[in-house]
């Protein structure tokens, strides 16, 4: 119980009057990462790699919002990504929406799927994790079903070549990184984020303190899903041709979870660092066989859980603490 009180006190410190230095830090956290990606595109010429990295930053941060702050781990997180990709594709094909609108509609698709699945939040722990996985798989089998070829083109994939524009897609991804960082900074600092942490520490106590547990959790779930939907939308726009199994690939969930865990969930900087470092290393080593990557990441997951359950940032904090 003391840890609950302690956490609430820390949270209260964050919500109340805060020092200007922290405000500046928050602004930097939101502005610097997108700016960094903008500069990186001038220096480094593999734009698709950088874009994919940004997509993973958004996914890791989106996962962070739901897992890091509520403790709900959706293995089927990729479902929202796929929903976003298909939401965009269908908007372009059937509504003839301009691409910017189509991307937003992709985010909306993620949001709607999450709203539809919000009853899953009644489950906890492993039940929730596996139910969300089942939901993502069900969505995949639904979209790739040959009987729906007239709508989703079934298993034969989607072609968005008519709206292809790599420069604009890159800028959209830069904006997305900013939005994702803003969401997490806001969750971290706001009253809302404090209630999430209170719920995570002790749902009953939080409810007694006047927090609407269901509403707060659902809200985090919707934010998280919308970020994934937008990420899927921008990814779809950038690659322009894709198959259902590519945007519903479970390894997208794996990536997001590993990146977030590696950096440290519940922090603002952790998932960003995780995505940039691990995705960078992954491409630097140039693992060409998917199974090699899968092996490395699987081992990494096990090692993180056993030896670094609070992520990279916990090392830094521990050192600082010892130094004092």
């Amino acid at each position, binding site marked *: 119980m003391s840890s609950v009180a302690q956490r609430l006190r820390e949270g209260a410190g964050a919500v109340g009057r805060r020092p200007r230095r922290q405000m500046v830090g928050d602004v930097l956290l939101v502005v610097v990462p997108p700016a960094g990606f903008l500069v990186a595109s001038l220096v480094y010429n593999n734009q698709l790699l950088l874009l994919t990295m940004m997509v993973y930053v958004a996914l890791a941060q989106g996962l962070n919002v739901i897992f890091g702050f509520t403790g709900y*781990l959706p293995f089927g997180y990729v479902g929202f990504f796929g929903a976003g990709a298909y939401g965009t594709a269908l908007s372009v094909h059937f509504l003839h929406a301009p691409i910017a609108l189509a991307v937003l509609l992709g985010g909306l698709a993620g949001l709607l799927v999450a709203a539809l699945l919000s009853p899953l939040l009644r489950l906890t722990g492993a039940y929730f994790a596996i139910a969300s996985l089942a939901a993502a798989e069900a969505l995949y*089998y639904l979209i790739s079903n040959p009987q729906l070829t007239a709508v989703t083109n079934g298993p034969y994939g989607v072609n968005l070549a008519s709206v292809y524009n790599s420069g604009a897609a890159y800028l959209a991804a830069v904006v997305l990184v900013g939005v994702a960082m803003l969401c997490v900074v806001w969750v971290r600092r706001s009253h809302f984020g404090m209630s999430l942490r209170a719920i995570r520490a002790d749902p009953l106590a939080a409810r007694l303190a006047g927090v609407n547990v269901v509403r707060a959790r659902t809200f985090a779930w919707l934010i998280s899903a919308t970020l994934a939907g937008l990420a899927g939308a921008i990814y779809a726009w950038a690659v322009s041709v894709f198959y259902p199994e590519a945007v519903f690939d479970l390894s997208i969930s794996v990536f997001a979870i590993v990146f977030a865990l590696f950096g440290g969930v519940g922090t603002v900087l952790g998932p960003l660092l995780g995505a940039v470092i691990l995705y960078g290393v992954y491409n630097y080593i140039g693992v060409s066989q998917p199974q090699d990557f899968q092996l490395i990441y*699987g081992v990494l997951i096990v090692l993180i859980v056993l030896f670094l359950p609070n992520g990279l940032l916990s090392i830094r904090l521990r050192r600082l603490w010892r130094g004092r």
Partner: protein
Amino acid sequence: MLWLFALIAGVLFGLYYGLAALGLNLIFGVMRMVNLAHGDVIMLGGFAAVLLFDHFGVNPLITVLLVIPPSLLVGYLTYYLLGRRVQRSRDPEMMSLVMFFGVSQVIEAVAVIAFGNNEASITSAVFGTRPFSIAGQGVPGAWLVSAGVGLVALVLLFLYLYRTSLGRATRAIMSSPDEARAVGVNPDRISALTFGIGVGLAAIAGILSLFMIGGTTPSEGVDLTVTAFAVIVLGGLGSPMGTFLGGIVFGLALMFTQTYAPVWSGFAPFAILLVIMLLRPTGLLGRTVRSV
């Protein structure tokens, strides 16, 4: 008489799915951990049977016995190297889930590297080519064998749990770990043994999966884990009898979908799982295993 065939096939497949989910339920009951690598162990069992059959002509039914000792060993090692550590972490339920997710990824990757991405299978002719007749419906011998192995496993597990002192200790830990410890049960020993039994049951289910699900591929693990989870949620966590009831309900649902709407048979298991979890998360026979 399409429905009669679906009914018979559903029950036979149900017994098989009960077997495939039994180990997962047992491990969850004792350790409160979901072994997300369960489906991958099933996949490995399938490959073991194919390799032994191809190279040494070993009958799959013999392989069923052969996989038991290595499975117990693997279960012991996994428990002492990984399970016990993660059980003592800050948030054992989530952390074990994430960790076994990693283990599942490792097994799948190693299987692709070792066996390639192709499907491996054994001809079902090893169990005879002539279909058996049940109520006028022709049923492949392999289905009967698989359902029979499932039943035998259920009976043996029942005898183990209710007629031996180790089984009594296992049930004690299932119902209350702290009280079990207080009366002198060693939770580590029971947990390691249970993990071994769970892995063994999964491997046996894997051998039979060659005849029930079709050939085995390295990537099938995740789907199998979700299927097994659906079955144990259906039947209620922590009861072996319930697992088989869940298996039969699942088998019937699957067979009727496959008979009347084959295009949706990939979609069905996941949809069934979602519906059950939302309507009745404690399962058909379930008591409330834990509170939120």
